């Protein structure tokens, strides 16, 4: 082959620029909608996590209203959240894959990817900078104007300005190519449905045609915030384990001025210069009170027989326990050197433990949720590992074996749902009540369940009649408090609804004023696409949805049969009033009588009788 191929690393920004379809930025209609979602969800997440009742104001304005769609729009989302400290602003909005959401807890977005994608999309379609106004302390507002350097994945600040302001919060404004004529319905639906599932938020939307949509908050209390927790063994893969192993606590610490300062403090030494021997002597006295990193550094020093000055001239390359050698790079001579380690030395154990890491049982109990000492031992038996195996010593093959075993072992308790933030039955009920004013409604919150190590909770509501305007089964789907509007065809919730035989519950599913609200909360909602619009049908989730729907349908069925009885009684009364007079007329003529029989009391009695029958029925049902 004569042609030369260039292998270049591309930046995350570059990657997403090339694959923007994946993130929901495939065309002007979809992109405008996705951008709205990303900013609104970021604002809601931020408020949720700092316990602030969200007040969000969104504006979409055409740059040139006369132009036909698609055309540039200015999208601004302003919130009353915690804001972003000014030093983080450029990175947060100017790099892809920067965010505070890498922990394991429920949030609307996962990695803060979407907002940057929206900014990126705005920039490539209109070449306009993003404008960020952030006030994190309620005193100073920082205004930024910046662009994204796609190739370098770096922000380019064009303007920065400081003003004093007492209004805390964040405002982000981008200019992007969009098609409001087509996306408008979906965006309005999105805003409306978001207010339904976030009844504690006030959301205002000024649309490009000058219409204002204002959804005031219905409740004044927020559902409890989720906590960040350790992962569950079922939800883990080899790469995650590897990352957990290379945790800072168990690495050889960097020796810099800061570290030396720390050591001096812990040893209680005030002088600036110390000999090696003086340090060792002090150490022996203070060993018990020393912190782990300090112990490790001192252990190194003991083998190197080095003082602080010497220590700063070298870099530790390897602690070779097999050959009992400590390998280091000497800056002064520019060569790799090694010293032997005395295995009898008390410091050897310290160093070995650090390098080898914790024992497997310790690792399992401390770094995972739902694993106690007994479960850890049982698991080791199952996976054929020695409980005291040092995780730092594990080979790649052993790691794979460990990872596989973690997922196949059935003895772990199901995941901890405290990292979830369901809305709660009561707020959901209030939300549905206020937005639909139905004749009948019921809500249910299932207990937490899990699929492949990720906990989830299903919340569902059902409502019938009243001011529900739509006809037929209308399903409002939510996941982690996000409305799902596109791709409903392949969604698991709709599958479950469709599978239900509504006749059994006395509901005419194609013509009844009837809605279902479904909310899936999970640390990881199994979306089918990056666009986050439809949930895949995991058996565990499907089962929970089915149980929730069955529970609610039975309640609805009870209501429907009462309603049906009332209607039947009314119909019967109508029948009597229509036909009994005819019967009286005909039989009078037929029998040759002059006066009609006294039948009118029968109509009244019968109607009254039916009503009491029905009341009895109601009592029985109650």
């Amino acid at each position, binding site marked *: 082959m004569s042609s030369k191929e260039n292998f270049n690393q591309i930046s995350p920004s570059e990657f997403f620029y090339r694959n923007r379809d994946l993130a929901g930025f495939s065309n002007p209609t979809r992109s405008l909608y996705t951008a709205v979602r990303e900013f609104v969800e970021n604002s809601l997440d931020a408020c949720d996590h700092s316990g602030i009742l969200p007040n969000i104001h969104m504006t979409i304005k055409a740059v040139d209203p006369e132009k036909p769609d698609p055309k540039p729009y200015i999208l601004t989302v302003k919130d009353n959240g915690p804001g972003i400290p000014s030093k983080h602003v450029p990175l947060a909005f100017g790099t892809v894959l920067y965010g505070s959401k890498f922990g394991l807890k429920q949030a609307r977005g996962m990695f803060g990817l979407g907002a940057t994608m929206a900014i990126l999309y705005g920039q490539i379609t209109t070449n306009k900078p993003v404008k960020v106004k952030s006030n994190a302390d309620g005193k100073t507002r920082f205004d930024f104007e910046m662009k994204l350097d796609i190739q370098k994945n770096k922000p380019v600040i064009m303007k920065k300005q400081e003003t004093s302001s007492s209004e805390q919060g964040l405002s982000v404004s981008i200019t992007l190519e969009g098609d409001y004529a087509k996306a408008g319905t979906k965006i309005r639906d999105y805003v409306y449905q978001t207010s339904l599932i976030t009844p504690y938020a006030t959301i205002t939307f000024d649309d490009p045609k000058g219409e204002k949509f204002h959804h005031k908050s219905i409740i004044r209390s927020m559902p409890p915030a989720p906590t960040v927790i350790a992962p569950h063994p079922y939800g883990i893969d080899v790469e995650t384990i590897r990352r957990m192993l290379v945790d800072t606590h168990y690495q050889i610490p960097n020796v810099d001025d800061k570290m030396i300062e720390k050591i001096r403090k812990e040893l209680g030494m005030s002088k600036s210069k110390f000999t090696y021997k003086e340090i060792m002597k002090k150490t022996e006295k203070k060993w018990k009170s020393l912190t782990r990193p300090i112990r490790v550094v001192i252990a190194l020093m003991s083998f190197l027989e080095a003082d602080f000055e010497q220590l700063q001239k070298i870099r530790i390359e390897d602690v070779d326990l097999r050959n009992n050698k400590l390998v280091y790079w000497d800056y002064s001579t520019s060569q790799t050197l090694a010293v032997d380690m005395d295995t009898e030395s008390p410091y050897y154990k310290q160093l070995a433990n650090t390098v080898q890491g914790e024992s497997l049982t310790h690792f399992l109990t401390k770094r995972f949720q739902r694993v106690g000492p007994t479960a850890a031992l049982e698991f080791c038996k199952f996976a054929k590992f020695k409980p005291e195996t040092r995780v730092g010593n594990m080979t790649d093959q052993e790691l794979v074996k460990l990872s596989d075993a973690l997922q196949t072992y059935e003895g772990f308790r199901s995941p901890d749902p405290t990292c979830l933030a369901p809305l709660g039955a009561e707020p959901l009920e209030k939300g549905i009540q206020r937005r639909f004013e139905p004749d009948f409604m019921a809500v249910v919150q299932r207990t937490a369940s899990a699929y492949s190590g990720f906990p989830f909770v299903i919340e569902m509501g059902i409502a019938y009649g009243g001011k529900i305007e739509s006809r037929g089964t209308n399903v409002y789907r939510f996941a982690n408090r996000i409305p799902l509007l596109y791709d409903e065809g392949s969604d698991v919730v709709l599958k479950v609804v469709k599978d239900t035989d509504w006749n059994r519950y006395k509901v005419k599913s194609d013509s009844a004023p009837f809605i279902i609200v479904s909310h899936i909360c999970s640390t990881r909602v199994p979306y089918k696409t990056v666009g986050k619009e439809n949930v895949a049908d995991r058996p565990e989730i499907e089962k929970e949805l089915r149980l929730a729907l069955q529970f609610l349908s039975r309640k609805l069925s009870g209501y429907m049969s009462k309603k049906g009885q009332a209607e*039947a009684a009314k*119909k*019967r009364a109508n*029948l*009597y009033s229509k*036909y*009994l007079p*005819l*019967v*009286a007329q*005909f*039989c*009078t*003529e*037929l*029998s*040759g*009588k002059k006066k009609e*029989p*006294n*039948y009118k*009391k*029968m109509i009244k*009695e*019968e109607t009254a009788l039916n009503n009491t029958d029905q009341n009895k029925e109601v009592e029985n049902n109650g």
Partner: protein
Amino acid sequence: MAKKTTKKVTKKETKKEKIDKSKKLIQALKNHGAQIYEDLENGEFPKFSIPNRSISNIIYDKKLRQYVLGTNSSLRSARNSSQLRSFTQLLWLAFFANKLTHEKKSSTLRDVYYSSQAFAVDFEDQQESDNIIVDLEAVLSQPREDFFVFPEERSSIFGDLTIEYTIPGYEGKTQNLSSHPDGYAIGPSMTSAQLTDTSAELVIAIEKGGLFTRFVEEQVDKKFKSIIINTGGQAPRSTRTLLKRLHDELGLPVVILTDGDVYGEHIAMVIKSGSANAAHLRELTVPDAKWMGVWATDIDKFKLPTIPMTESDIKRCYDLLKDPRYEEGLWKRELEVFIKIKRKAELEAFSKYGLTNITEKYLPKKLEESKSF
């Protein structure tokens, strides 16, 4: 003339009978009305007891030689909201039938359907009103003709028979039925008329209008001293009633001439012993009537040109074999021959041997034969 005198004696009896029958009907309707009136007056919901007409309740009565209804009956109550409507319809029909009978005004099934609309009693379609009419027949055990509801006329009669009309406007008028060669339609006025005089000694019921005309032209009435009736296919109930009266009141034997196929055989059987559809009614059958032909065995005997039977013809043969009336004798034998030869012959087939062949050769031969069975 002795014969004629005896017939005139029966005439008076029948007149009396006829009046009784009509009175009985009016009384029955009145009784139903009075019962319902009383129920309403007492604050109770009235109901009709209607004999069950489902297949499970239709049984063959060997003694009567016809299908009859069993003892099952169902209640139609005004209390039951799903029955109230049809209860009202039934009562209305009783009321309407009473009116018709009083005024001696005839009406058709279709008339009934439209008349209901004047009384706010709505029938969804004629099918529904027809069903209610059958319900009333069952309640009263009387055919609808008795309460002056008639089907469309399609059968006719010809021969030396004098009748005296009873319908309003014609009371006392007499008519001899041999005056008009096209025959007389068998309608309400005919069925309700008195049969006063005849010289005939035989009634020939024939399936087809074409042959009826031929028979009149060939003066079969005179040659065989007979009254000729065109049944127009399956005989309507008014025609069957008339046949029964000719047999019972005038003592005339009835013979039946049909196409040589399974349907023809069954036309004869229905005249003789009724149909399952009318199991709720008596007085519609002529058990002594004789099927004269064309038999399956006649096809070979008279060398008749034939056409092949269709699948459904053959299926019909097998269905009828399951009917208790076809279990024995002539009826069974002929069916089995039809199944064997798988061919059928129409009455017109005799024309192969000349237009008068049927009246000159076949008819005398079969009449002679029929005396022996």
